[in-house]
C-alpha cells in the first residue's frame, strides 16, 4: 500500500468541510431552539389538546432517527415531485430533531421551577403571559443552560449525518479526501480529532456548569428523564 501524503489542498478541503459543520450546527441550534421554545411552551399550555399535540410531536420526532428524517426529506420528497437541496433537507431534519429534544428538556426546566413561585405570581394578578415571561422563564433559563450546552454537543455530532444525503460537511469531506488518498485510518482519525476539538470544549463547559448548579443530585426530578445523552 503506497501512502500518499495529505497535501495542503486536502487539508484546506477538510477545513472547509469543518466550517460547514459549524454552520449547519448553528442553523440547527438556532432554528431548533426557536421551534423548541414553541414546543416547550405548548407542552405546558393551559389547553389540554395543545399539550397532547406537542407530546405526540415529541414522541414522533424523538422516535425517528435523524438519518431517516433526512432520507425522507432528501430522497422521499422528490418522489412527490418536490426537489429539496441537500443543505435544506439536512437543515430541516436537524431543526425538527433539535426542537423535539430541546422542547422536552426545556419543558422539564419550566416545570422544575417550584410550584409556590407559580402560585405567588398568580396571586399578584399577573396574566399567564406575564407569569411565564417575568417569573417562570427567567428562573427556568438558569436551570436550562447546562443541559442545553450539553445537548449542543449532540447537535454537532448529528450534523455528520448530512454527509449521507451528499452535503459536504466535515464527514463527507473526509470521505471525499479518502477517495483520493486512500488512507481511511488516518483520515477518519483526523476527522474524529476535528470533531473532538469542536465538541470537547462544550462537553467540558457542560460539566463545569452542571457542577456549579449542583449537578445530578440537585437536578429536579422532572429533568432526569428528559435529559438525553444522545448517541449518534
Amino acid at each position: 500500500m503506497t501512502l500518499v501524503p495529505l497535501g495542503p489542498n486536502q487539508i484546506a478541503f477538510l477545513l472547509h468541510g469543518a466550517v460547514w459543520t459549524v454552520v449547519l450546527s448553528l442553523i440547527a441550534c438556532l432554528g431548533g431552539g426557536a421551534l423548541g421554545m414553541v414546543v416547550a411552551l405548548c407542552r405546558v399550555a393551559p389547553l389540554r389538546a395543545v399539550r397532547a399535540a406537542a407530546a405526540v410531536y415529541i414522541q414522533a420526532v424523538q422516535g425517528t432517527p435523524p438519518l431517516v428524517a433526512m432520507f425522507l426529506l432528501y430522497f422521499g420528497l422528490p418522489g412527490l415531485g418536490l426537489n429539496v437541496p441537500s443543505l435544506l433537507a439536512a437543515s430541516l431534519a436537524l431543526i425538527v430533531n433539535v426542537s423535539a429534544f430541546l422542547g422536552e428538556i426545556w419543558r422539564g426546566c419550566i416545570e422544575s421551577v417550584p410550584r409556590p413561585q407559580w402560585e405567588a405570581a398568580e396571586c399578584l394578578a399577573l396574566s399567564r403571559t406575564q407569569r411565564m415571561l417575568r417569573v417562570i422563564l427567567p428562573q427556568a433559563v438558569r436551570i436550562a443552560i447546562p443541559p442545553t450546552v450539553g445537548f449542543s454537543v449532540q447537535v454537532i455530532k448529528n450534523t455528520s449525518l448530512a454527509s449521507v444525503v451528499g452535503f459536504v460537511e466535515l464527514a463527507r469531506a473526509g470521505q471525499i479526501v479518502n477517495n483520493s488518498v486512500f488512507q481511511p485510518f488516518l483520515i477518519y482519525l483526523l476527522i474524529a480529532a476535528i470533531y473532538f476539538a469542536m465538541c470537547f470544549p462544550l462537553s467540558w463547559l457542560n460539566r463545569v456548569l452542571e457542577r456549579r448548579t449542583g449537578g445530578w443530585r440537585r437536578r429536579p426530578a422532572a429533568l432526569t428523564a428528559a435529559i438525553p445523552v444522545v448517541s449518534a
Partner: protein
Amino acid sequence: MSFDFSSVFDQWPLFLHGALLTLELSVVATVAGFVIGTACALALRAGGVLGGICQVYVEAIRNTPLLVQIFLMYFGLASLGFHLSAFVVASLSLTVNVGAYTAEIMRAGLEATPAGQIEAGECLGLSHVQIYRHVLLLPAMERVYPSLASQFVLLMLASSVTSQISAEELTAAANYVQSATFRPFETFILLAALYVALSLVMRLGFAALAFVLFPRRRRLRMATA
C-alpha cells in the same frame, strides 16, 4: 400527487427481517455496552491509571460522531489489515458507543450515593462485593434507570447509521425497498413509523423490566396511585 403504500407494504418480509436485525443489534449492544459501561463507571470512581484510561475512552466516544467511529472501525481497520464483517463492526461500534454513555450515566448515579451508605454497609460486616452490589450498583442503577433506558432507545435509533456500511438492518432494508419500488416517500414514512413503533416497544420493555428489577419503586408507585 398520489400515494401508493401498497407496493411498499408488499415488501413486509424485508422490513420484518430488517426490524429483527435492528433489535438484535440493539440488544447485543445494550447488554454488552451496559457491562462495559458499568465496569468503566466503577473504574472512573476508583481513579488511578485504569480510571484515566476509561476517562479517555468515555470522552473520545462522547465527543465524536458515531458515523465517524463506524467508518474508522470498518474502513480504517480494514486498511490496517483487520477485516471485520459489517455486522461485527456494527455490533462492536454500537457497543463501544453506548458503553461510554452508560459509563457516564452510571458514574453520575454512583456519585449520588450518600456518604453514610457505604459506612453503614461496612459496619454491618458486608463484604466488598456485597457492598458494591447492594449499596453502590443497584441503588445507582435505580437512580439513573430512566436516563439509561432513554439512552438505550436512542442507541436503537442510532443503529440506523450502520446502514452506511451495509449492515442489513431496518434502514438498509428500507433503502433496498425504495430502490425496488421507486416509492421513496412512502417507504421512508413507513420506516419512520416503524422506528417510532420500535422505540415504543423498547420503552414498554424497559418499564416492564423496571417493574421486575425495582420492587421498592413498584410499591411506591402503587401507594401513590
